[in-house]
């Protein structure tokens, strides 16, 4: 029995189809959504979402953080931004990483919430570069 997966960014729906398993980067570790999984809502970090048909991974998408809503029959991923891994521009991502690292260096080290925000952005861009290089 397949599970219906949807990857939605604010601008559009990227994927909407049936697959057998979805592995996604949860904030506290990767999680796989399979049919009959207990309903769950989770926060996503920047990373790769992999769609499986049977045992084989078929598609990889990079999501830059977001939320996921799983039930027994469907899995909805609300991504802050999402791109197929093959369309990642590593150069652009590297440039963004440099800008962020610079912001991190110059940021006020006592402003914890800003530092946390920057850190998660840096993590997300690193994950994007890794995903682009691997895919």
């Amino acid at each position: 029995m397949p599970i219906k997966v949807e990857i939605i960014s604010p601008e559009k729906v990227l994927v909407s189809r049936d697959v057998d398993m979805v592995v996604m980067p949860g904030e506290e570790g990767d999680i796989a959504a399979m049919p009959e999984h207990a309903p769950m809502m989770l926060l996503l970090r920047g990373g790769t979402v992999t769609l499986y048909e049977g045992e084989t991974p078929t598609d990889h998408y990079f999501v830059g953080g977001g939320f996921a809503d799983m039930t027994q029959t469907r899995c909805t991923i609300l991504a802050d931004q999402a791109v197929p891994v093959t369309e990642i521009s590593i150069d652009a991502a590297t440039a963004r990483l440099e800008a962020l690292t610079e912001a991190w260096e110059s940021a006020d080290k006592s402003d914890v919430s800003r530092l946390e925000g920057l850190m998660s952005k840096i993590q997300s861009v690193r994950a994007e570069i890794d995903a682009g290089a691997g895919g």
Partner: protein
Amino acid sequence: MASLKELRARIGSVKSTKKITSAMKMVAAAKLRRAQLHAEAARPYAAAMRRMLGELAGSMAGQDGLPQLLAGTGNDRVHLLIPITSDRGLAGGFNSNINRTTRLTIRRLQSEGKTVKLLPIGRKGYDYLSREYADLIVDHVIGVGGKEIPFSAASDLGAKVTALLEAGQFDVCTVIYNQFRNVMSQVPTPLQLIPLGLDEAEAKPDPDAAQYEFEPDEQVLLERLLPRNLQVQMYAALLESAAGEQGARMTAMDNATRNAGKAIDRLTQTYNRTRQANITNDLIEIISGAQAV
């Protein structure tokens, strides 16, 4: 009676006006189609967001310490109004409807003894409101309209509003935007964003559904979802408004083109009558001259 030369000049000028309005109509029609596609593409995200928020808020109902974005500050004293207009005119009643609704809302709130603050989006609304209510405007955003609205515009706006809320600048936040019914009609609609009214979403939790698990936990998820939801709602309002603007402009320009056509017909008729009258006069002069000889 205007001379033939004057009439010719007027016909010429109305004709070129007609060319311009009909070109603007075509452009608006093309942009409208794109804007509508965008607005439709953004809907699934907003719908899924609402579903998740409903689920989450339902499971947290009755708890204390709900975030301000959801529950508000507990007061109802200071209202922040965000009217969304376009940067450009020539769109019929599109902007003036919003401005009128905004003004009426300000009057009503003030007569109830509330404080009103304004954050107009779009040049037309800002220009209009700064004439009468300059002291109420806390901030304004211009240049969001344009061709395509990036999501970042909405998230900047959301961040701005959240910062104002956290600074205790207002209690209730309402967006006033043109809801896109169809090409002919855009309805100025107030939409309250803070506190978030979740009544309808909460009213229908599925009793058969198993209890949700949350990771990390409800509080953290809610804190992350709410600002996002604010941005998404803003984004949806901006997109609807953009589609409405093109629709309104298309209708207005269609009317203008038709009016210009009518004016040309009328002027042409006057022109021909005048021409014939002149010929008749000339003939009478010649004939009576010939008879006198």
